[in-house]
């Protein structure tokens, strides 16, 4: 997904000469093509995330479309006040890119974990918050985000994730129906879908048929798709590499509290605690039940197999 980001960045910058890219001293060799083509439209502010954001605010005030880039915790939590004051309050068209959101950097330790990036950004008025499921979604969504009049956050994973691969349209703010099913709807947020979709396909081959709905946009929340899920399914299970507060599950719960639907809503996701011990991302996901194996067990249990 990181490569899809740097390639898309070059593409959008070719079409729009007001796009300017700022990094907080990260992305070694990732943006060489951009630098070669656009020179001074690449800015390294140094390891100075407050300045990364404030410089983007000033640029946006002068009509530029800044895209700012750092590792997710340093793009979100670290300069949160600058984002809140400069970008969100003034509703400026700055795109914040958090590379390695969620537990992408699981083994780098708590300092590099960002299970809170989506929740933090969702708490800000005016912000659109996106976690693509794979490179194909990133390529489709990033140009849509750059057409917004206000700010946005883009969670970018690592290198090498597979495409989501579906004919379902990729539209900002709209959940995607990836696999139709019965009884149980699986709702994925972000790149966890790349693990889950093949598992759902395996389950279907065995006659266990949960539906799969994918949320690449957490804010604005697509409540109309969820209303359809409420009408058609008995249970929904949210899988999210996100803290409980402010994640997809909590936002759907809040919405559901305003409806009369009987749908049962469950969650597999990151706990409200720091993850110590430097597990691999796969180990970590297994530990918190956000993986294909855990989901398979849950579905088999629900479907009585």
């Amino acid at each position, binding site marked *: 997904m990181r490569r899809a980001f740097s390639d898309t960045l070059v593409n959008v910058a070719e079409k729009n000469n007001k796009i*300017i890219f700022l990094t907080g001293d990260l992305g070694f060799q990732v943006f060489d093509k951009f630098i070669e083509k656009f020179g*001074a*439209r690449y*800015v390294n*502010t*140094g390891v*100075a995330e*407050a*300045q990364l*954001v*404030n*410089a*983007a*605010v*000033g*640029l*946006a*005030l*002068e*009509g*530029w479309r*800044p895209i700012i880039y750092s590792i997710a915790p340093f793009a979100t939590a670290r300069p949160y*006040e*600058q984002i809140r*004051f*400069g970008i969100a*309050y*003034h509703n400026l068209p700055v795109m914040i890119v958090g590379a390695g959101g969620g537990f992408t950097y699981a083994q780098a330790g708590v300092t590099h974990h960002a299970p809170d990036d989506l929740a933090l950004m969702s708490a800000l008025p005016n912000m659109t918050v996106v976690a693509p499921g794979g490179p194909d979604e990133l390529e489709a969504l990033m140009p849509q985000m750059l057409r917004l009049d206000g700010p946005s956050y883009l969670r970018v994973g690592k290198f090498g994730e597979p495409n989501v691969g579906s004919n379902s349209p990729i539209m900002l703010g709209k959940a995607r129906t990836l696999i139709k099913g019965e009884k149980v709807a699986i709702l994925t947020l972000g790149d966890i879908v790349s693990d889950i979709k093949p598992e759902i396909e395996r389950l279907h081959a065995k006659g266990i048929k949960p539906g799969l709905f994918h949320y690449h946009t957490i804010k604005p929340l697509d409540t109309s798709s969820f209303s359809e899920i409420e009408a058609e399914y008995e249970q929904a299970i949210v899988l999210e590499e996100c803290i409980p507060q402010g994640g997809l599950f909590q936002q759907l719960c809040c919405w559901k509290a305003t409806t009369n639907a009987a749908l049962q809503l469950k969650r597999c996701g990151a706990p409200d605690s720091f993850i110590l011990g430097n597990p691999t991302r796969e180990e970590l996901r297994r530990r918190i039940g956000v993986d294909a194996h855990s989901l398979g067990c849950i579905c088999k249990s629900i479907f009585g197999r």
Partner: protein
Amino acid sequence: MMNSIQTFEQNSKIIRATTIKMAYDSKESHLSSALSCVDILNILFGGCLKHNKKNPERDRFILSKGHACSALYATMAFYGIIPVEMLSRYSTTDSELPNHPCKFALPELEISSGSLGHGLGIASGIMYGLRLDNRDTPRSIVLMSDGECNEGSVWEAAMFAAAQKLNKLVAIVDNNGSQAVGRSDELMGFTSLEDKFKSFGWEAITVNGNSCLELLQALTKIPFSKDKPSAIIAKTISGAGVSFMENNQIWFYRQPNKENLDAAITELNVEPLQK
């Protein structure tokens, strides 16, 4: 035609009286901090700043010490940028003039302020963007407080501006020596702000920030260097212009009563702009 120094000094008195009257009327102001920077605002808006918001080649002015906005509003009213009548709505509900500046309330502003440490970084982005557009006329002038220089983001911005050689960027530090609770010298280890900016790659000078003459001389010399940003450390007096408010920390918080207002107006020997 630039005002004479005597005229500037007289104007400062009227702006001070107006600012104090706003505090009396609204019971909302950081008065000592507003009074310390009146002369700086007066010299800027009275001739050193191209401030017409409709002019794309204007200077970009940011009051980064947003809590001193009563002095900004009074100065803007004095120079006809906002109507004097607007001052009576200072710090009232839905006012154009809230007690921390809001761009949505007052579009004449480049940006809102109130949270410290943002102005310099934002101005550096503005200047980078203008330079990239090959527009070398506008400058960006940021009025900051010395307490604000406690913020790390100020020094991140200072480093960036020097590295990018943003020579049209000007920081004016209202060095009134006092902060919300303590003395800025004590909290910054009795070190020189001029030395700090210089060591960050800026050209910096220290002037008497309550002297219209020294401010005017400094501002007409910017940029101080062709490839460095410029800093003016303006040594000021907290509560400047009214003897019983000067260097008295309580006036960061206290609002004047009728007796205080009358005593201040008598000492300044001018009438405030508003009725």
